[in-house]
């Protein structure tokens, strides 16, 4: 071996050792993997800013942010969670969607941290959905609920008032229909849309405790007659939807609302900031909201509102639980919440996160509507076991088309629930 080659090897070896030392040094920094589901602007940029600010405040933490779009998220999270690449802090929908991961020990119990005062910073009804078996597993990022957004100009023109009870509602719809407008814009190509109607109607037709017990896949039998009643009420609305609701996407139907062709649409309040940005001024000057009217003989809680927070959780197998919880606290805390409300128009679960006047009035007032509600009821699709929902989603589309009856549909949903119970 030549002397030159020998010295080259030594230099190379030394460089390698140095490189390793640097890497080891760098590893003392904590790296957190953070996963959310907002690929679009302004949301993704908002998270980038939040992460940058957090890294500035905590120089020892490096946050590796990843994004997966809404629909693929539901599938990919299930794959990632089983691997070593699982994110430390990630987005989730509370309810059965999250509960299945809790049952598989994939999500960290946050109760000890919540009991140290963190829990008191949240509005109780907003953190409640993150509980499973009396323990708290997540923190709310934004509040959501479903309301009818209606065109006040059409209501005035037809001469109808906001309905408070079901018979009044049908009367209003009939009058609007006769006046030549589409009473309700509805895009149900993907049946999560109908699940929001049914979740709300179930809450009004079935006693709360019984509904909650049925949503537990181990015990749910959906035996209460209120479920059929809820489907019947829904079937009464179907003549007032635009034609071919099952062939139209939600956003396409929404275009009919903001163009003034349809009088109302059942929308999530988180869609309102988007309306503010995209709808014509003509519509923005003439809209208001109302909640699903009461069902006079419904056995459920008439004041219950369908709507649920979305939030973030910490993976059970995270290597840095303390750092992950600290980041989660920041992410769902007051400072970020204020920015979130102002930049995006979303309200998180912190008490008094914004004051009146700090955000647009329409967003503030709909948020108050949700906060004043004592009982939020989860979306029907994400609260059901996936196998029951797959049957229910199809049956609900059939009811929308009028090709099955509420009794027959409920029978199939009960059978699906029975099959699922057998697995537990």
């Amino acid at each position, binding site marked *: 071996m030549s002397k030159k080659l020998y010295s080259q090897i030594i230099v190379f070896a030394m460089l390698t050792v140095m490189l390793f030392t640097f890497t080891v040094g760098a590893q003392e920094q904590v790296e957190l993997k953070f996963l959310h589901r907002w690929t679009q602007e302004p949301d993704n940029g908002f998270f980038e800013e939040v992460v940058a600010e957090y890294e500035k405040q905590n120089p020892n933490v490096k946050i590796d942010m990843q994004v997966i779009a809404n629909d693929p998220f*539901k*599938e990919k999270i*299930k*794959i990632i*969670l*089983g691997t070593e690449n699982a994110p430390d802090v990630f987005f989730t929908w509370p309810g059965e969607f999250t509960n*299945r*991961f809790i*049952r*598989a*020990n*994939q999500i960290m119990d946050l109760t000890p941290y919540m009991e140290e005062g963190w829990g008191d910073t949240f509005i109780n009804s907003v953190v409640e959905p993150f509980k499973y078996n009396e323990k708290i597993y997540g923190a709310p990022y934004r509040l959501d609920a479903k309301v009818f957004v209606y065109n006040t100009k059409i209501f005035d023109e037809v001469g109808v008032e906001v309905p408070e009870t079901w018979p009044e509602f049908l009367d209003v719809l009939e009058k609007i229909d006769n006046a030549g407008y589409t009473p309700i814009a509805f895009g149900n*190509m*993907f*049946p999560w849309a109908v699940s929001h109607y049914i979740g709300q109607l179930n809450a009004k037709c079935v006693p709360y405790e019984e509904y909650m017990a049925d949503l537990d896949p181990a015990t749910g039998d959906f035996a209460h007659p209120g479920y059929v009643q809820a489907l019947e009420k829904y079937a009464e609305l179907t003549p007032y939807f635009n*034609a*071919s*609701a*099952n*062939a*139209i996407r939600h956003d*396409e139907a929404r275009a009919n609302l903001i163009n003034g062709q349809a009088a109302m649409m059942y929308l999530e309040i988180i869609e309102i900031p988007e309306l503010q940005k995209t709808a014509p001024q003509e519509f923005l000057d003439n809209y208001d909201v109302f909640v699903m009217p009461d069902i006079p003989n419904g056995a459920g809680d008439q004041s219950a509102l369908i709507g649920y927070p979305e939030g973030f959780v910490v993976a059970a197998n995270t290597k840095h639980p303390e750092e992950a919880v600290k980041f989660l606290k920041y992410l769902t805390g007051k400072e970020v919440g204020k920015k979130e409300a102002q930049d995006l128009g979303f309200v998180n679960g912190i008490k008094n996160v914004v004051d009146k006047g700090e955000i647009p009035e329409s967003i503030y007032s709909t948020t108050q509507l949700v906060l004043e509600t004592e009982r939020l009821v989860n979306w029907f699709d994400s609260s059901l076991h*996936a*196998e029951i929902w*797959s049957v229910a989603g*199809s*049956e609900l*589309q*059939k009811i929308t*088309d009028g090709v099955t009856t509420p009794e027959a549909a409920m029978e199939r949903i009960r059978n699906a629930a029975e099959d699922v119970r057998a*697995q537990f």
Partner: protein
Amino acid sequence: MIVLKRKKYTAYLFIVPAMLFILTFVYIPIIQNFYYSFFRMNSYSPTKTFVGLSNYLDIFQNEIFYTALINNTWYAVISLIFQVGLGLILAITLESKILGRERKFFRTIYFLPSVIAIAAVGLMFYYVYNPNLGLLNALIRIFTENDFRYAWLGHPRTAIFAIIAMSQWQFTGYIMVLLIVAIQKIPQELYEVAEIDGASSFQKALYVTIPQIKEMILVTSIITVIGAYKLFTEIFVITRGGPYDSTHVLGTFMYKTAFFYDKMGYAAAIAGIIFAITFTTSVIQIYISNRGEN
């Protein structure tokens, strides 16, 4: 002798990396898939329960499975008629002497749809079939003067055929180009002989062209049939199996089972069935083409 032997080993040595690669990424996963199909398991929990053949038995009792199988078969049959049948007619017409230099133009026109990403085509056809804004209904309205607003993708009886029609639009030109390549390899002398014998253009196509490209017709048929049973993207980007599970094919049914119902073992069993179907088709193809050569 020793030299020869050594050479033999060297050859194997060169095969080893490729073999390992194929084993790791093709054969072992197939075997694993069959292994997993005997369990109840999901992707995010380490526990799995052995359930024997019950996944397979459940599949055969599931109505969506039969809907899917029928839809795949429709796709295969219609694709054979249009992509291979019509593609063949187009190929022969474009290569005949009727057309001059403009044949290149038509070849490109017919081929073009197949280079567009399926997701883009899917979105485009979603709007073509749209009840209110759609091109198709607008065309029908011109001729019927009715307020025709049929939701092609909203009705279980038409949705799957609407999607199949989209695939015909997209891939007929692709199969056509494959057939054209085969036609161009036919020696000109055969046509000259046929002309001397007084054969018409139709007879030349029937007795010279088609027998000469028999192999390619068979290959394209097999590609089409196997493609029909592996179908996924077209359905997934347009309807995702709806309305009420009427447009599911085996691929989307498998996907939904795996990632939506969290039943990985069950999905593996569906994958096993898809494998059995495509594998059998391939074996038949190889058998027929071998017999043809002999």
